[in-house]
């Protein structure tokens, strides 16, 4: 894939990742503010409504899938993990994490798919499919109110460094880096849109523009397209590295899944 090798060239080679003045890393924002604070009162009210938040339709669906007997003689999700409400509390805060079998980072969605193929011996679910979003939303919802607790040291460190570099790297025809919109100009208007700090604490998120639930990677692809850069694939190594950096960056914010955004 061309995009992968191209991106590889842009990043700092591993040699420059030694102990330096920038480790442990410091957050560059004076204060982290959730994307929630940048929404209109109506959108905020929709998210806070325990009934009308449309993202909860996916959580409900996820719960039904969780309890549904597997098509093979393998157990359902519930068969091993019992109630998601108790067993999955806090699970989403630890992803993305290093996975020996994958030889790199995997995120929550990929972890669920792993369970599905290895334990349930079922075909993988599409990354952005309804069922996958529903299960991811169900599991992430059990961490609502908790902060992220990802590891950035050890084997995760090179991934973190690459994610951090991605955030700083100008790209696309607009020649913009993540930080330009989401740090330098956060809170200011970009035409009709108020720029948020670009935190990842509400995913999967219900976006009114999508009229549906979408993953963080879908949002990142949208961001890349908006600055006219080539988007990476769902679940790509580039986005996983960035996801790790974003989780670390949002660590002071509680998880809101399912968040509602414009």
């Amino acid at each position: 894939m061309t995009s992968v090798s191209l991106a590889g060239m842009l990043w700092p080679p591993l040699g420059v990742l030694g102990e330096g003045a920038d480790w442990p890393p410091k957050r560059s924002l004076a204060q982290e503010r959730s994307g929630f604070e940048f929404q209109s009162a109506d959108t905020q009210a929709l998210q806070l409504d325990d009934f009308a938040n449309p993202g909860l339709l996916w959580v409900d669906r996820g719960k039904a899938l969780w309890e549904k007997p597997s098509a093979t003689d393998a157990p359902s999700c519930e068969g091993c993990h019992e109630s998601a409400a108790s067993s999955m509390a806090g699970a989403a805060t630890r992803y993305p994490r290093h996975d020996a079998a994958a030889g790199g980072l995997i995120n929550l969605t990929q972890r669920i798919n792993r369970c599905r193929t290895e334990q349930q011996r079922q075909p993988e679910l599409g990354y952005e499919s309804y069922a996958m979003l529903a299960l991811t939303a169900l599991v992430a919802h059990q961490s609502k109110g908790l902060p992220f607790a990802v590891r950035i040291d050890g084997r995760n460190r090179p991934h973190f460094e690459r994610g951090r570099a991605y955030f700083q790297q100008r790209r696309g025809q607009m020649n913009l880096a993540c930080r330009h919109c989401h740090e330098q100009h956060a809170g200011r208007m970009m035409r009709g849109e108020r720029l948020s700090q670009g935190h990842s604490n509400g995913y999967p998120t219900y976006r009114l523009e999508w009229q549906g639930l979408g993953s963080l990677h879908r949002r990142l692809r949208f961001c890349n397209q908006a600055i006219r850069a080539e988007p990476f694939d769902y679940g790509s190594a580039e986005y996983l590295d960035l996801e790790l950096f974003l989780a670390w960056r949002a660590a002071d914010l509680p998880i809101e899944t399912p968040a509602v955004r414009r």
Partner: protein
Amino acid sequence: MTPTRIAMPDEIRAGQPFEVKTLITHPMETGRRPDPLGNPIPQNLITRFTCRLDGILAFEAALDTGVAANPYIAFLVSAERSGTLEFEWHGQHGFNVRETRAIRVV
């Protein structure tokens, strides 16, 4: 299976209006949007929503292209005695979803 969410008070007082809230998964395609390749996406709408209390129509709504995806409908109903609320979403392409909920008047 089409996910729906229905909420209402657990206990209802006779003759006192109570709020019923409903939410359903549906794309509510207007038929005026192109897909990424430029082909029109066919119209796909819920056109009618009804709520019956023991078979008697209590609330009805006609939905059209102006309603966003995953329609949220909230309304007031009053009941004199315990019974069953029956909800029905009726739409294009044979879409039909039915849900029932018992209400308890105290």
